[in-house]
């Protein structure tokens, strides 16, 4: 199997595809205590100017996190994980999480991160530092 050390600058990471559902949004609200009605109530979200309920940004970030940990396996840990939420994600959107290597040193890989929807709009961009186990 390919080791993290084999990844070169600009090489892509394995992608993760994800389709959030209303049920998952509710489960995430229950697991985290974030019951902000913009995520759970279409009418409320419309009144707040959002055209319907939106997925928690942190749930989208968690999918990028999963893409990273599936790729990292036991070879390292995430030491820095920064994202910007650029577009709203709604239940049933088809989201593709992707990334590539931006820079590397002896024990760190710097990764560029991105999530986009099926309209090819970028919904999230970010950066992660992966520290390799010595």
């Amino acid at each position, binding site marked *: 199997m390919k080791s993290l050390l084999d990844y070169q600058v600009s090489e892509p990471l394995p992608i993760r595809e*994800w389709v959030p559902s209303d049920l998952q949004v509710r489960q995430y609200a229950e697991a985290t205590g974030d019951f902000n009605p913009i995520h759970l109530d279409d009418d409320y979200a419309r009144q707040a100017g*959002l055209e319907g309920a939106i997925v928690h940004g942190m749930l989208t970030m968690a*999918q990028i996190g*999963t893409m990273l*940990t599936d790729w990292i396996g036991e070879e390292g840990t995430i030491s820095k994980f920064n994202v910007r*939420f650029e577009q709203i994600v709604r239940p049933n959107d088809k989201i593709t999480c992707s990334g590539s290597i931006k820079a590397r040193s002896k024990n760190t890989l710097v990764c560029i991160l991105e999530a986009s929807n099926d309209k090819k709009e970028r919904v999230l961009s970010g950066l992660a530092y992966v520290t390799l186990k010595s």
Partner: protein
Amino acid sequence: MLPLKIKLEDVRRFAEAIGIRFNDRVPATFVGTLVQANIPGVELPAPGMIHGEQNITYYRPLCVGDSLNYKKCVKDVYERSGKLGKRMFVVLETTGYDLAGELVFASSSVLIAPSKEEGE
């Protein structure tokens, strides 16, 4: 400082909610759940408030069973005008320490709200 115990059942529930198989590891965004905790004396303009940015730094990996203390503060509040009108930005910072007082993680959230006068 508030106590924070990384409990197995909380991590498992979180892992299931984000759609992964729980394997004793703490998902990197788990500490983001603390964003919701209230800060005494601070009232955020909740309706229509959205999450703009999230930055998490780990100084060491977090494990199930860890006992930490954390504190939250409002780091910054500012207004900016853009194509969506005037919006207010609130930066919340959460920092977690182990029981020896060593920094374990720092997490900052940028929340964006429409400015109040906009609707008037």
